[in-house]
């Protein structure tokens, strides 16, 4: 259980380990983008960890990274063509960031640091925890940026009409600002917990 929970808070991939910054900052202009990106990462991370944990004993040490990359790339490509076939609109709005999951350091990082060294069950729990942790990070960032940047959540207008959207929030600079504030808040919470 600890393997699952640590990804959600204590070793959160976004706010604690600062992994996967490229898709995080790029796609979180809206909630729906954040959710679909998060789910794609959960899927790829789960199955990559599954395969890596299963074959860890037969993979020679020298080529392990190459093998992991091939496995990850396979699952990412499957997700990519599945989205193109079944959900063309989401595939369009995520654009090149789905294929870029291949080089998302969370996935290679978890395969190398965890799945290749632990049992299948623990690897799967770790993958789910990290994937969902990444997803809620994306979701939170997407929600804040969409709310202030366009005044909507999931396309539904939330802010009163007089609210003038802050364009900077959906520009790349806004992503860095929000991320910075969120990490500061996380650190504050962590500190106050330690004091107790």
């Amino acid at each position, binding site marked *: 259980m600890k393997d699952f929970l640590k990804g959600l808070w204590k070793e959160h991939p976004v706010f604690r380990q600062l992994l996967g910054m490229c898709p995080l900052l790029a796609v979180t202009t*809206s909630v729906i983008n954040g959710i679909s990106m998060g789910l794609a990462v959960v899927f790829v991370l789960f199955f990559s960890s599954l395969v890596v944990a299963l*074959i860890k004993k037969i993979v020679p040490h020298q*080529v392990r990274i190459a093998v992991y990359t*091939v496995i990850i790339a396979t699952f990412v490509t*499957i997700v990519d063509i599945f989205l193109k076939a079944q959900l*063309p609109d989401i595939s369009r709005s995520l654009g090149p960031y789905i294929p870029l999951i291949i080089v998302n350091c969370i996935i290679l990082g978890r395969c190398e640091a965890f799945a290749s060294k632990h049992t299948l069950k623990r690897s799967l729990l770790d993958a789910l925890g990290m994937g969902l942790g990444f997803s809620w990070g994306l979701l939170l960032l997407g929600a804040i940026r969409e709310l202030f940047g366009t005044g909507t959540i999931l396309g539904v207008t939330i802010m009163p009409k007089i609210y003038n959207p802050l364009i900077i929030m959906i*520009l790349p600079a806004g992503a860095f600002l929000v991320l910075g504030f969120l990490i500061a808040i996380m650190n504050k919470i962590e500190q106050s917990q330690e004091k107790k």
Partner: protein
Amino acid sequence: MKEMFKIVGVLTSVCIICAFFLSFANSTTKVKIELNAKTKIENAIAILAPATSSIKKVAFDGGTLYQLSNNQKKLLGFAFLAQGQGYQGLIKILTVINPSLGKLEGIEIVESVETPGLGAKIIEEGFKSQFQNLNVSDKILCIKDDLSQNNQIKAITGATVSSMAVANILNKKIAKLREMLRSK
């Protein structure tokens, strides 16, 4: 020596297995993806020129020109795919123009990879609707201020490059179409 064979063997077999899965996934979704692209064009034509009942395809500038006519065989206009470089990549626009090439019936963005939240707004109604009944006897102008003429469109705030790209792609393709029809 034995070690080397193991390294090569494992890596090769992993690649072969992955390739097998990928080709399987590709073959099951290929038809659907092509169908999506085709229905997208047909749907877009149906929205932009609802009276269309028959479509005739002719070759045009390395692509296809769709001649749209209604059930009395009267020519309603032409539809074509115009494509070109946007801010981040290719933009493909399905355009419907009237028979005299003086006015657009409307456009539909079929493919684009513009920045989400900014350039990607070119696919939204607010931007696309500006092209309905737009005068194209002269070049389309993309401006940042308020509109004063009927061949102007307003650029999206924060995405001037993407907005200009749409106007330029259309201008080029319309000029080519005009040339082709004149030479006929």
